[in-house]
């Protein structure tokens, strides 16, 4: 999922003709000063940290300014802050509008119904999870019918809009649906959607694009504001890599097996750190790269748990043996290996020739990994 910061989401909204406050993104207090002085950013204005995490208002990552000097000062204060783990590098400065009401509108996927779903609530501007079910209208959108007029009418009725405001929302819903479809979005969310005068304006924008669709949207492929440097390296090599708090490195293949491995490690008191999903591969070099990447994360011990299907056991064993030879002695760590499935015998034999024993049972292997990591802490 390519998560976009507010201003990037709004760039998309702008392309689809969704009404937005005037303003722009700045990366320094000087830019904020200049932008407000030239009128590029109307005053009074709102200054918002461009981070992915929610709760910016309460968390001090949103401020207001009536003059250019105040805008510059507020910008200086927010830039560089760490907000829920993210460093603030960009701000969005926008005109402060006379808001009559705050609504909620989003389109996302309803997995169970296998259709996109439009959700609206008259209670916008708050955490929508807290809004009672009765206050939230969910409208399935059949992909073969698209967003229909009668669904829009239901949404408009639920929000209690009429006249030009209703017309404005009608247009916004069409545009939001087009953006959702044509940008291969997983989510387009406007919270709050403000009623201002005769129309509606998107005050915020949460847009995420489907990873798998970047082959037809190369413009999103490089936007990753939410990865650690090691995760970024892994992504470039096509390896799923997640950093947690613990000290046991886990290399497995497939999301389900990886999660089950973490479950079992934790059951025996282990603290999984980096985990790394090889996915399906039969390239030994990719296994080698994955292992060396793991080494860079300096785990206390590594548990390799592979069930060979597309990924054959001998491939993994070959890549692993190659990698171990490349790890400098000073950086070595205990390795517990369990390889099962396709070409199991060949894989076990290759490991044995390099002095590595492959264990058979998941339970015993997990216990061994926990013990090894504990011993080195």
């Amino acid at each position, binding site marked *: 999922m390519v998560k976009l910061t507010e201003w990037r989401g709004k760039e998309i909204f702008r392309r689809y003709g969704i009404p937005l406050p005037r303003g722009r993104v700045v990366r320094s207090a000087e830019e904020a000063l200049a932008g407000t002085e030239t009128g590029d950013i109307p005053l009074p204005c709102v200054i918002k940290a461009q981070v992915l995490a929610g709760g910016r208002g309460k968390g001090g990552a949103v401020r207001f300014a009536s003059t250019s000097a105040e805008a510059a000062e507020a910008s200086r204060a927010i830039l560089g802050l760490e907000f829920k783990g993210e460093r603030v590098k960009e701000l969005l400065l926008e005109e402060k509008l006379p808001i009559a009401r705050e609504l909620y509108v989003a389109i996302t996927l309803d997995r169970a119904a296998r259709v996109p779903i439009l959700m609206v609530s008259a209670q916008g501007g708050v955490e929508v999870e807290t809004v009672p079910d009765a206050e939230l209208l969910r409208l399935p959108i059949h992909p073969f019918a698209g967003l229909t007029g009668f669904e829009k009418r239901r949404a408009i009725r639920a929000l209690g809009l009429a006249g030009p405001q209703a017309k404005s929302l009608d247009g916004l819903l069409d545009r939001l649906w087009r953006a959702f479809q044509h940008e291969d979005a997983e989510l387009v969310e406007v919270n709050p959607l403000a009623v201002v005068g005769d129309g509606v304006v998107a005050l915020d924008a949460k847009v995420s694009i489907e990873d798998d*669709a970047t082959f037809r949207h190369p413009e999103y492929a490089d936007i990753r504001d939410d990865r650690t440097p090691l995760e970024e390296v892994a992504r470039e090599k096509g390896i799923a890599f997640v950093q947690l708090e613990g000290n046991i490195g886990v290399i497995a293949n*497939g999301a*389900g*097996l990886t*999660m089950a491995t973490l479950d079992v490690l934790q059951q025996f008191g282990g603290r999984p750190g980096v985990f790394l999903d090889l*996915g399906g591969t039969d390239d030994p070099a990719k296994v080698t790269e994955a292992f060396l990447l793991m080494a860079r994360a300096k785990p206390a011990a590594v548990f390799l748990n592979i069930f060979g299907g597309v990924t054959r056991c001998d491939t993994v064993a070959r890549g692993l043996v190659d990698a171990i030879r490349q790890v400098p002695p000073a950086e070595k760590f205990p390795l517990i290996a369990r390889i099962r*499935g396709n070409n199991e015998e060949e894989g076990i034999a290759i490991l044995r020739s390099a002095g590595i024993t492959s264990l058979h049972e998941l339970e015993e292997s997990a216990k061994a990994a926990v013990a090894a990591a504990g011993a080195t802490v």
Partner: protein
Amino acid sequence: MSVLVDGDTRVLVQGITGHQGTVHTVQMLKFGSKVVAGATPGKGGSTVEGVPVFDSVEEAVGKTGANATCIFVPAPFAKDALLEAVDAGIRLAVVVTEHIPFHDMLTMYHYARLKGARIIGPNCPGIAAPGKAKVGIIPNVVFRPGRVGVISRSGTLTYEIVSGIKEVGLGQSTCIGLGGDPVVGTSFVDALPLFEADAETDAIVLVGEIGGTAEEEAAEYIHHHVEKPVVAYIAGHSAPPGKRMGHAGAIIARGRGTAESKVAALEAAGAKVARFPYEIPGLVREMLGKPASP
């Protein structure tokens, strides 16, 4: 009767000339599947492991009577491959390809439904009935004919669990790997009635994961419609919550989607829930009233 596949299943492999297509054609043949045709545009007239290759699915179906397909074509072309299969009259399509955009899958799913076809997957290991047929990529070694039905959202974890069932001396009637993508052609709720109705299945193993609400929906279905014993496992109860993005997902889930929610729902529906994969075979034995294996 097994589920969805049997001795009359005639398998077409779309993308047979690619590396994975070829590798798994060999494996399906070894399993005993009747792989009757391959399809790769521009490669018509050649053969792969003795299997004739055609330029189009229409031709393959017309000349070989293929009635199921296994799709290996790359993600950008997978939608087209599925539509082609469905239009040519194929009624069971296993989509192995991963990374298909869900927007494409929405079209694939609803179009297949319109035409009366079933999709398993995408991003899935497929389906296998030991002794009868396999359409997909589950390793042959994990199977043994038997009376336990397996339905799983996972890939390799399925192999682990199916293999565990075999190791305690039990076997499988049919195993379906549904795939873990946001939109799947066949969900637990779609697969459960098939196993409930299958005369060769005595017990059902359901392998879920955190995320989505498919397991909660399965629990609801089990509660009302499934008489056979169900053993379930949910992977990921130790996984940390991902970074959050917007609220829409949370609204749909409304507190469901966590391991706790899924386990509670399944237990309330009368399923036995294993805490770890290696507990599953024992629970199956227990529910079938069979003694532990020697």
